Each structure stands twice: as C-alpha cells, then as structure tokens.
C-alpha cells in the first residue's frame, strides 16, 4: 500500500530530487565538493528562516489559542485570520525607539539578547528533520540516513552544551539592566536553568546508554527499529519534557519573567528590537526543545513506516510532531498556574534529580545484565517505583498534617461572632 502510494505520488519526484541530492552530496570518497558546500549554505538559510518564521507564527498562535481557551477570538484583523499580525508587530518593533537607559552596562546590555537567540538557533544544526532513501552518494546507501545541517557524532553533547549557553543571555541581561526586577529575574533564570539542566542531561543519559551513540541520526535509526524511546524510557521522556518547559522559561516555570511579581523580569528595561530578540529567543528555544523531545523520545521523522514514502514525508512527520508539542507549550501555559519559587526548586532538586539518577542506574544495570526481558519490563518498573514513592510520601503526609477544621485550637469559621473576632 505504502509502496504503491510512493510509486504513484512522491515517486514522480524521486528522480529529479535524487539528482539534486546527488549534486549537493559529498564526493565518492567523502570529501567536500562545491555542490555540497552550496547545498549546506542553502540548507542553513532555509532552516534559519523556517525557525524565525515559526517563532513569529508562534506569537500569533499563542495569542489566538489563549484567546480561544478564554472564550475570546484573539487577533484576527491583520491578514486572513490575523496571520499577518506578526508582520505588523515586527513593524512596530522596528520603528520603536531603541531606548538604552543611562544606568545600564552598555556592552552587556546590547549583547545579552543576542546571547539568548543565537544558542537557541544553532542548536537546530544537529537536529535531523528528515531521512533519505537510497541516494547515489557514497554515504546514502542505507535506509536511515538523517538529513541535518551538521551530522555530528556528538550531537547530544553539542545540544546539551549549547542550550546551556542560553542562560547567559538572561542572566547577563538581568544584571546589565541594573534594576532590581531585572536582576531578580536574571538570578532566578540562572538558578532555575542550572537546576533543570541537570535533570535534562540525566534524562538523556539512558537514551544514550541504550542507543550507545551520541549521534542523533543513530538515535532515530534505533527508534525506527525498536519502537519509540518514550515507550522504553517513559520516565526519562516525561522528565525531559518538564525540564524543557523549565529550560525555556515557559509557564508553569516562568519564574524569570513572572510578570505578576517582577514586572517583566530580566527584560524589564528592554524595548524595541532588543526586546523582540528576547521574545524570539524564547520561542526559538521552544521550537528546539520540541524538536529535541521528538528526536530523542518520539522517533524523530519516523512514524511506523510512514516515512518510507520519501523524504518529504519525513519532513511532514517531523513538523507535525514538533507542531503538536509547540501547541502543547501554549496549551499548558494557559492551563497551569505558575509554581512558587521554592516549589520549583524542590521539584528540580528533590524529585527530578533523584528520579533521573535512579533511572540512569536502573537502565545501566538492565543493560549490563544484557537480558532482553529486563529491558521490556524496565518501563513498568520505573512507573511502579514512582507510584510507590508517591504513595509512601502521601501516607507520611497523611499522618503529619491534619485537615484545618479537625486540628485542635482552630475555631470553625461559623463559630466566631463579631465580638470574638475583634478580641
């Protein structure tokens, strides 16, 4: 069925595109050719623009979806369904006065927005967005050949190190602004990101252990053969997802911005295009976070054999998955209220860190024993261990805390008269 479709539809494009990829591919001995360099440059331009446009569209989607969830309509005037709203916003950002307050550290203040955007964008370099069929190139004779800007062998390490740089933008921006709200936002950003970077990294470790490769293409190839990593490592996938929310400073973890507490957090003093860059950095980080989640745990551009239709199908599958998680970012934001700061820290250090450590330990042990059935029951063991831990905690708290109306010394709400209340 799938092959019939491939022959009918995408098959028609097969030959010219294979020729095109052949031109842009490396030479037979793996050395770079002129066509390869041109191809990579075109790819970089394409991916950069797609990410930027996606970030702009995410602003629109955020406003529309939040409006729908609140029974409103949202921006729908500029262009069809308000789709050109980001352009209007861009125009506004461009022509607003770029205020640099007198009390700021000018150099840091200027480069901080860039430090936020650039790491988020260059992370996308190693994320494979589609795979290939058999190409004429020397490297393309296997089924799984992931297409990405840079096919790094240490893709996972690269991502972890580069996304960690993003925090400098927020912290430096908060510090350089020389105002207390900005500083508090910056400090919160650094503390939060360090806390969740740990869980994020440790959640990836089991994946790397199982695949025994740091190459994201290999991770996807493994998942194409053995099923999505989320089924093998549900705990890691779950913690990774939540850590990504914390890393991108999205609600329920938007401590650095926390507009009800800190005015606007680290970007309080920013205006015009510099503010827009912070905005863009946040949405780009969301895109990259979703792409990472999809690649590491949800099979990347594969979808149960559907990807065999061709490279275009891979792009579609990958985009659909990423877009779903981008929607989930918005969805969660308008559902769950913000955590308190100590709750956030406790969740990071007190719950996620031990859980990920246990997860790494159990996975490594199961791999060391090298028995297939242990790997199969591992997800169940992990979920069961969480439930048991939660149950023990619940029982302990049941003993410790009494409901307010039962506790001794508490006057029930109805019993107090006016005189007693004043006395």
């Amino acid at each position, binding site marked *: 069925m799938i092959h019939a479709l491939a022959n009918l539809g995408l098959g028609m494009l097969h030959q010219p595109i294979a020729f095109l990829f052949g031109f842009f591919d490396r030479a037979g001995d793996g050395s770079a050719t002129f066509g390869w360099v041109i191809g990579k440059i075109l790819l970089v331009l394409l991916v950069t623009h797609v990410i930027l446009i996606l970030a702009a569209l995410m602003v629109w989607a955020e406003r529309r*979806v939040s*409006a*729908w*969830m*609140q*029974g*409103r*309509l949202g921006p729908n005037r500029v262009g069809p369904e308000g789709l050109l709203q980001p352009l209007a916003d861009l125009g506004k950002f461009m022509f607003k006065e770029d205020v640099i307050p007198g009390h700021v550290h000018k150099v840091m203040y200027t480069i901080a927005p860039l430090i936020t955007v650039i790491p988020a964008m260059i992370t996308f370099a190693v994320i494979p967005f589609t795979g290939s069929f058999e190409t004429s190139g020397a490297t393309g004779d296997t089924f799984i050949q992931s297409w990405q800007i840079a096919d790094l062998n240490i893709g996972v390490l690269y991502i972890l190190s580069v996304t960690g740089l993003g925090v400098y933008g927020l912290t430096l921006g908060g510090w350089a602004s020389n105002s207390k709200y900005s500083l508090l936002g910056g400090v919160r950003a650094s503390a939060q990101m360090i806390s969740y970077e740990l869980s994020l990294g440790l959640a990836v470790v089991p994946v790397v252990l199982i695949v025994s490769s740091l190459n994201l293409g290999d991770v996807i190839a493994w998942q194409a053969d053995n099923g999505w990593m989320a089924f093998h490592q549900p705990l890691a996938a779950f913690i990774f997802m939540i850590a990504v929310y914390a890393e991108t400073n999205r609600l329920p973890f938007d401590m650095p911005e926390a507009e009800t507490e800190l005015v606007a957090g680290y970007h309080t003093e920013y205006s015009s295009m510099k503010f827009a860059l912070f905005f863009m950095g946040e949405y780009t980080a969301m895109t990259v976070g979703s792409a990472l989640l999809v690649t590491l745990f949800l099979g990347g551009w594969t979808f149960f054999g559907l990807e065999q239709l061709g490279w275009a199908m891979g792009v579609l599958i990958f985009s659909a998955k990423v877009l779903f998680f981008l929607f989930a970012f918005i*969805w*969660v934001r*308008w*559902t*769950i209220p913000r955590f308190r700061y100590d709750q956030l820290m406790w969740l990071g250090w007190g719950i996620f860190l031990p859980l990920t450590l246990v997860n790494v330990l159990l996975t490594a042990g199961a791999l060391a024993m090298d028995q297939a059935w242990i790997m199969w029951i591992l997800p169940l063991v992990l979920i069961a261990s969480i*439930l048991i831990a*939660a*149950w023990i*905690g*619940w029982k302990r*708290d*049941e003993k410790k805390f009494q*409901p*307010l*109306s*039962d506790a001794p010394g508490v006057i*029930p*709400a*109805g019993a107090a*008269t*006016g005189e007693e209340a004043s006395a």
Partner: protein
Amino acid sequence: MTAKVKLVKRRRSTFLDRLYFPAIVTGLGITFKRMFKKKETMQFPEERWTVREQYRGMPVLVEDDEGRPKCVACSLCEYVCPPKAIYIVGRELEDGNTVERGPAVFDLNMLRCIYCGLCEEACPEEAIFMSETYMVWGAEREDMIFHKEKLYELGGVRAQGVKKWKDK
C-alpha cells in the same frame, strides 16, 4: 448576629490528588474543550450592541409630535448638571407661539458629560432625554460640543399624551 453558616468538612487529599497529574490532565481537558466553545467576543464595527430601552446614553433634545421643540430654556438642567456640561442662553419666542421661551443656544459638551441622567430628571418639560447613542466621537474638542440643531436632530420626535401648552 446569628449568621447562618454551613460548616464544610475539609476533604482529605487522596492519593490521586497527591500525584497532581490527574488534576493537571483534567485541567488540560477543560481548556481544550473551551477552545471549541462559543466565543464571547463581539466583532465591534460590524456587529453592534443593541441597547435596552432604559439605557442611559448621550442626552438629546426632543420635539413633540406636532414638531414643536419642547425645551423652554428654563436652565434647570444647566443648574443640576454636576460637571457643568450644559450651556443655555434663553430667548423670547415671538412667532405667535403659545410657548414664550426657547433656547437661543443649547450647547452640550460631551467631553464633560458623565451620563448621570440628572438633566432628564430635572426637566419639567420632558424635553431632554438620555438617548440610546453610546458612540460619541469627534476629531477635535470643538466636535465634542454638540449644538442645539444637532441635539434636536439626534433626539427626533417623542410623542406624549399630555399637551401642556396646547390651549394656553
């Protein structure tokens, strides 16, 4: 001071409550369902709000069903107006009318008007009414001062049973 108070016993948190995630998933379900429900927004310039009969919009002057401007320039509304939005200069009518007085100038400053409706209450002639006009705009300050002719035009004709000046 015997307030009727119903004491509600606090529910102990169950195991599912402690897991948090069932509650979060329920919340996500609620927001997702909300997305497809009817939107409350009114697309303003295209859709307009229809006001009730008792709505207190902009004050206007009316004529009776014989086409006679009802205002007799008694200046009661001018006196009662809290923000002093009304300015009246009276004059004598000499065209054989049974009514001897009318306004030469009746200016209503809509930048000042607070829509309190006291002018309508004070008027002994039932000549000024709170209309259903809720959109009042002007490009300049001058545009926001409404003169007699405009006020009569907005008010139109209001029929009434009692013809107070008919046979005087």
